[in-house]
């Protein structure tokens, strides 16, 4: 039997986001696996391929983890299944000693 083609990929077990491999609709339930980790996430909004969504709750100021590494910080509280992108994430590059929430407020 041909295995089910995954809808999204989690790269590291430390990650709190997954990357969509196809267009995902709001309300759609997506099954995900990475090592020991197996979970089902209900999308709260539509996500197109290559874009990320939260697989756990991320509070404002918390790090976004992809590849097992920090790729930025949340500028707003992010719900499970929500699109994670420039509207709710800021880069930490160049201001690693500064809280991202302050940066986003001043922006």
């Amino acid at each position, binding site marked *: 039997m041909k295995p089910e083609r995954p809808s999204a*990929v989690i790269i590291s077990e430390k990650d709190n986001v997954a*990357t969509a491999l196809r267009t995902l609709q709001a309300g759609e339930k997506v099954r995900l696996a990475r090592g020991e980790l197996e979970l089902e996430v209900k999308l709260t909004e539509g996500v197109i391929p290559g874009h990320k969504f939260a697989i756990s709750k991320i509070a404002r100021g918390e790090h976004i983890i992809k*590849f097992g590494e920090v790729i930025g910080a949340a500028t707003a509280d992010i719900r499970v299944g929500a699109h994670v992108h420039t509207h709710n994430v800021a880069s930490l590059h160049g201001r*690693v000693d500064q809280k991202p929430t302050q940066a986003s407020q001043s922006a």
Partner: protein
Amino acid sequence: MPEETFLGYERPDGRVGARNHVAIIYTVDCARFVSEQVASKVRGGIALGWFSCYSMLKNEDTDMLVGLGRNPNVAAAVVVGLGCETGSPSKVAEGIRKSGKEAEVMTIQGAGGTRSTIEKCVEAAKRMQKGIPLERTQHAISKLTIGLKCGGSDATSALSANPLVGMVADRLIDAGGSILTSELTELAGCEHLIRERSVTPELGRRVSKLIGDSVSEFETRFGSGHTMMSPGNVNGGLTTIEEKSLGALTKTGHRKLQGLLQPGEYPKRPGWYIVDGLVAKNLRHYGFEADGEPTDFAAGGAQLTIFTTGRGSANGNIVAPLLKVCANPQTYRNMKEDMDFNAGAILEGEDTFDRSAKKLFSSLVRTASGARTKSERLGHQEGGQIIGGVPLSRPALEFCP
């Protein structure tokens, strides 16, 4: 055979080769024809060398050829010069001999012309061949130094092949091996990550500066805007510069950065090393070549390079073979004759990262033990001709990022 060992050719300096070549090394393009003729007449013969006459004046130039000659995939070397070039064949041979292997010197002017030089070089190569091991013996994988490089990347590269290779890199380093990377302009925007992973703050500062210098050099030559976040990146789903850079950086895994190597310099300890690509690129004809890093890695002692691609690539390396890991399952099917490993199976649900990493590691060990890569079977022999020192003012003929 247990996975923590591989079968290779032991060299006098204790390094272990994955291949058993006799290198015919020319110190100027005027000696290339003769070298290629010699290589074609000797079992395991490969011809490589330096193109330009006037550029081979700096120590780094000699170091690069010495580094290639010292590579454990090379059993012995014949260094061929015309006889009046600026580079010194005897200096190259002397450097190679320091590793304990044999290296003969020949000049075309000294040996009496084309035919006579070819004959004498073939004779010398065959004599040296009698002294080199023909049997592979078992060695710890800590003896492996592996280059990592990506080319022809697409959106899948960062989602399958690069993180997968990172897992293999971690396992190799934990077993005492080394990895070499370069691609400094692609690290722009994640200097802070490099600093965090550097063994000393000083190393982190040096690499950060080098990334900045590489971006400036690149922009001077090719114009700006190649290395930052573009609207296309953002539309494609990349949120921050860290995320973009990590897509390439993730193939180095998660271990500490041990040092920065100059071309021809070998790692001194196990772990991750960056080859100074700015020096290397200026040595090697900046912008005149597509994928020169595998040659830099070979000059740093790498027996093999793992090459990740999404769109596909059709190249090889004359000294250290490329093991092609394809991130995109469609590309893998389309270019199977060039691809060694299908990391895209992860994206199709046919495999997991953990299972794939085990398979790729086994594939690496098999390749190090003599299994030929697709590019070797196809006869690819890229990377052997080092153009040398193209000045900054000279326009680039072509560029392929």
